């Protein structure tokens, strides 16, 4: 199999143009750590962005970062940390869950719309994106947005690039609005809540003015995160504990213990390694416990919750349809959607990995794909058969 590793955007564009001319399907990769997401791709060559690296602009005082797609996420986060800043959406690292190796890149993170626990307070990956450069399926270089955080000039193709899994274009550069990292972070924990009570407690916390930046429930621990300047974080933790006292006694975690806990929540560490298919459901938070209970009537499933219940991780047996029918009966009835994150290649080829779309939306999505990738050479089959 041919492996393309262009070192410039122009070189990448001409590789795609050649592939389009010959209708040669390409699998697009960055660090390769999220390669097992989506359906298996049937490609004749790989096109890697891993050699398109470097931060092209970083202005801490403008909260602006522009970075080439192949840049390792770890490098970006180290540069931000040196200025006390962060990517606001706390991107999930898929390596533990998928058992993959390599270095996650900016392009892969964006293409898979990888957001983490802070998504409920600071927005998703797409909310922090303010500009993109990409090469479409014809080999055309396209720029949209820019480097300023307020920009309504023309259509917003920037957000369209988050979660397109390389099927609309190959990202070459992305601009972000970054944020100062909190001076202090405290986790407030309640032990022993049933799922339904945990969801109610998380709703109470999110409706408070204490700027809660994480609310998750796993292993019978319900965890809330507050942040701020030194005294501010302490004030928020105390106020939140008081507000949640109706749900049970609280304890606090700080420093490494707190950081490690949120890293494990972010990466869905509880289902790392071992067997089983893993689903990710995006639902109305207050529906979470009810949906899980209903799913368990038809299926053996373990569950944990992030985003105050809005994100459910489910582990089920990787056999048959991996529970797709039972799970999607719930999303069909109550709204939201389910994505099969981890399963064998055979299962992912046989099951709709992404929630099937209703007809008019499916037509629009197919129409966009036909415009951006008329030959269907970019990650064919990754999202839809």
């Amino acid at each position, binding site marked *: 199999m041919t492996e393309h590793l262009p070192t410039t955007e122009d070189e990448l564009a001409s590789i795609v143009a050649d592939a389009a001319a010959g209708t040669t399907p390409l699998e697009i990769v960055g660090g390769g750590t999220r390669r097992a997401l989506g359906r298996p791709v049937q490609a004749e060559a790989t096109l890697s962005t891993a050699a398109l690296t470097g931060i092209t602009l970083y202005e801490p005082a403008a909260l602006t970062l522009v970075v080439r797609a192949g840049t390792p996420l770890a490098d970006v986060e180290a540069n931000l940390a040196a200025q006390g800043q962060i990517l606001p959406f706390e991107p999930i690292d898929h390596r533990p869950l998928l058992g993959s190796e390599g270095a996650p890149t900016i392009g892969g993170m964006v293409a898979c719309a990888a957001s983490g626990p802070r*998504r*409920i307070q600071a927005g998703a990956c797409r909310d922090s994106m303010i500009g993109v450069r990409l090469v479409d399926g014809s080999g055309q270089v396209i720029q949209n947005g820019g480097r300023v955080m307020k920009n309504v000039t*023309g259509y917003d193709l920037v957000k369209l690039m988050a979660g397109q899994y390389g099927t609309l274009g190959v990202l070459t550069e992305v601009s972000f609005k970054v944020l100062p990292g909190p001076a202090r972070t405290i986790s407030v924990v309640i032990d022993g809540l049933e799922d339904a009570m945990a969801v109610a407690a998380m709703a109470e916390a999110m409706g408070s003015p204490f700027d809660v930046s994480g609310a998750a429930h796993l292993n019978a621990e319900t965890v809330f995160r507050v942040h701020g300047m030194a005294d501010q974080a302490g004030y928020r933790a105390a106020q939140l504990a008081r507000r949640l006292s109706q749900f049970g006694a609280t304890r606090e975690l700080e420093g490494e213990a707190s950081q490690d806990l949120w890293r494990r929540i972010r990466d869905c560490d509880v289902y790392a390694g071992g067997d089983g298919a893993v689903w990710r459901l995006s639902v109305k938070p207050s529906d979470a416990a009810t949906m899980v209970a209903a799913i368990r009537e038809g299926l053996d499933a373990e569950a944990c919750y992030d985003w105050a219940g809005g994100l459910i991780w489910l582990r089920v047996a990787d056999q048959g349809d991996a529970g797709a029918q039972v799970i999607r009966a719930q999303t069909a009835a109550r709204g939201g959607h389910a994505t099969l994150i981890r399963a064998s290649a055979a299962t992912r080829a046989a099951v709709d990995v992404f929630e099937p779309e*209703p007809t008019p939306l499916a037509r629009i999505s197919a129409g966009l794909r036909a415009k951006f990738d008329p030959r269907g050479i970019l990650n064919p089959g990754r999202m839809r058969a």
Partner: protein
Amino acid sequence: MELPDPSQEILAQKAEVVARLGEILGPDRVISVDEELRAYECDALTAYRCRPLAVILPATTEEVAAALKACAEMGVPVVPRGAGTSLAGGSLPTADSVVLGVSRMNDVLEVDYPNRFIRVQTGMTNLAVTGAVQGEGFFYAPDPSSQLACAIAGNIAMNSGGAHCLKYGVTTNNLMGVTLVTTEGEIVEIGGAHLDAAGYDLLGLICGSEGQLGIVTEATLRILASPEGARPVLMGFDSSETAGACVADIIKSGVIPVAIEFMDRKCIHATEDHAKAGYPLDVEALLIVEVEGSPQEIEEQLAEIKDVAKRHNPMTLRESRSEAESKAIWLGRKSAFGAMGQLGDYICLDGTVPVSTLPEVLRRSEELADSYGLQVANVFHAGDGNLHPLIIHNANKPGDLEKAEALGADLLRLCVDVGGCLTGEHGVGVEKRDLMTHQYKPADLEAQMCVKDVFDPSWILNPAKVFPLAESQDRRA
């Protein structure tokens, strides 16, 4: 400003078009008498006017769908209109178009506090959304300065911002779902009460598409718990450069104020004459920096901000000590546009520049204004670089408006040239349509027009906006 020639064929069919829409909506929902159409011939960009063929005012999503389907079948262009407050001519009609106003669609459909959202019909005003939830201690964050009048429909179409978006983001960051009526008259749900998209992020595409991809009739909006309190601090500096450097250092310090507003000398004086807000008159630039939280949290943040400000030798540093003082500080800012009106007619621009280029841009704006013999005053959101230069002119003096428009175009080109953009929150509309080629290469515009092709293959929605006429000619034909 050029509009495409209206279709004589459609103009000749006015009676049939009006009759068919009347059958669908009832005759009282269709306006076709010349006198009554006058109210719809422009939006807040009053320099451009064109009377439409007819105006329709549907009351439900189903009525919008039926009307759109009929218009598509007849090949009649449709211009969506929220409250008509666009400063960019976003809802300027063409002579052969039907204006579809959502003003009768202003119901709250659902309020859900545990899941922190509100679902509304999009004719509702921005401020009414906050009004519907503030009793329970919640608010809707995007706050464009026209929020008393502007509709959520227009906010979504233009991806509106506001003074507080440094902390809370703009409309697209607070929009969770829409009911969209497609150009064929289909009703589509995108997003909803859950947090992220299934499949492609079509919601991100719809928001800011200036009513050209479909008509949004209902919206699910994020509501947030109101902060416990807020307090501003006023700072005056001896130069715009120093004020700009102070803004940069505040942001670098790690505190994110909820707003950082900037006024230049011209604006300070006009405002003080008008509103008597007690602003210092000896400074070249003034900043209003506001933080939120409990009293203790506010103290901690303001202490940090004042420390930063003191390093820049402010000529004035005045922290609000009471509700009344806070009001006085904001009074001036909020009356700034009214005050500028006392100086003459003005054009309000909306470019964004990288924050680091602010001093340079302000200096070059002044040079450009001098070269045209016009005055420019500046009042803007400094934290995000979104400028609102006001070009003062006399609309009754022949040639003055044209001169002001030419200066405006030069100033917007300057914004692009330093790494910014043509419009930060008002939208392209017709106003900046012909400048789009300065910001985007042909391939960039082509990609955007391809998106329009997918949603609106016959290009009947909101014609003659966003894309330069020459670039879109083949598609519109």
